[in-house]
């Protein structure tokens, strides 16, 4: 008996939803038609003509730039190679916990870590709230 009632309720709900959808369809499909204002066409064409008279942007001079870019890349690459070549042996000799850094310096560094963590959490929560607000159409 109970199940019969539930089935009937569901059927009623479906029928109500269908009639509501039909009404919404009828309302939203019957939209008034706007006629463009008299100056619209002229205004658009004026903007188009303005754009048409603007000279095209000057293309980037790739032919002249490519040798310079290659040279710069080569110099940077060579510099990086030399840096690694000379620094790698020196870095290997440095211990991970340098004795010359005092405890007085390590403590503020730890606190800075906490501050950075707190800032990251704040940023994440701000981004999340923006996202949620955006989904709900508030933004």
């Amino acid at each position, binding site marked *: 008996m109970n199940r019969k009632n539930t089935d009937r309720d569901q059927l009623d709900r479906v029928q109500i939803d269908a009639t509501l959808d039909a009404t919404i369809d009828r309302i939203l*499909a019957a939209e008034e038609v706007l006629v463009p204002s008299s100056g*619209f066409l002229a205004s658009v064409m004026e903007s188009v003509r303005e754009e048409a008279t603007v000279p095209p942007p000057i293309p980037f001079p790739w032919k002249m730039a490519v040798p310079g870019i290659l040279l710069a890349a080569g110099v940077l690459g060579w510099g990086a190679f030399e840096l690694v070549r000379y620094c790698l042996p020196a870095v290997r000799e440095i211990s991970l916990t340098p004795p010359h850094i005092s405890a007085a310096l390590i403590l503020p560094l730890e606190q800075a870590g906490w501050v950075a963590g707190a800032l990251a959490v704040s940023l994440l929560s701000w981004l999340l709230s923006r996202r949620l607000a955006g989904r709900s159409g508030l933004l």
Partner: protein
Amino acid sequence: MQPGGRTSCLTPRRVPELNASTQRANDDLAVVDRVLAGDAAAFEGIVRRWQGPLINMAWRYCRDRGRAEELAQEAFLRAWRGLAQWRRESSFSTWLFALAANVYRTELKRFPVETVPLEAAPEPAGPASQHNQLAARLSSDSVRRAVLALPLRYREPVVLFYFHEMDLGRAARAMGLPEGTLKARLCRARSLLRRRFPRLEYEHAAMEMAGKEA
């Protein structure tokens, strides 16, 4: 009988309609070719033909006449700049509507229209209203304004679906979404509207009937 033994499903009325739309598509093509060949003035043909649809589409996005014209103008300018990018795989109108939808979406994200929250959208007036025709119109306006209060992901499918005369395929192409996705979003949007206006059917029908009798 058509070649291949298939019978034509076109009614006599549909044939001239299709011929007219093919003619229009060819006209668009010719105008686009002229514009691309350097005849900027030929673009006027495109604006003249599509100004109505683009303004009406923008109107559905923002319900502000002045803003609708501004948005449509921006869409035409973008079309002018990007005309060479139309690959002619789809019809010109499909490309233009997709471009316009993109422009409207971006512009309205930058400067959103002022809307009331969906829950605060006014209820339609009761059928006992003295001016039933006016009340019916107001209830329709409430529903249309409530569409603007929907979240953007549901609002845009509704706008484009009804703008394209409930043609799911065209609306999906204008949004660049698969039809299934659009259908799901429409379903959700309708569900939100139904929840907002649970008695709409009875009130609207009663008001319309009373209006007709009057």
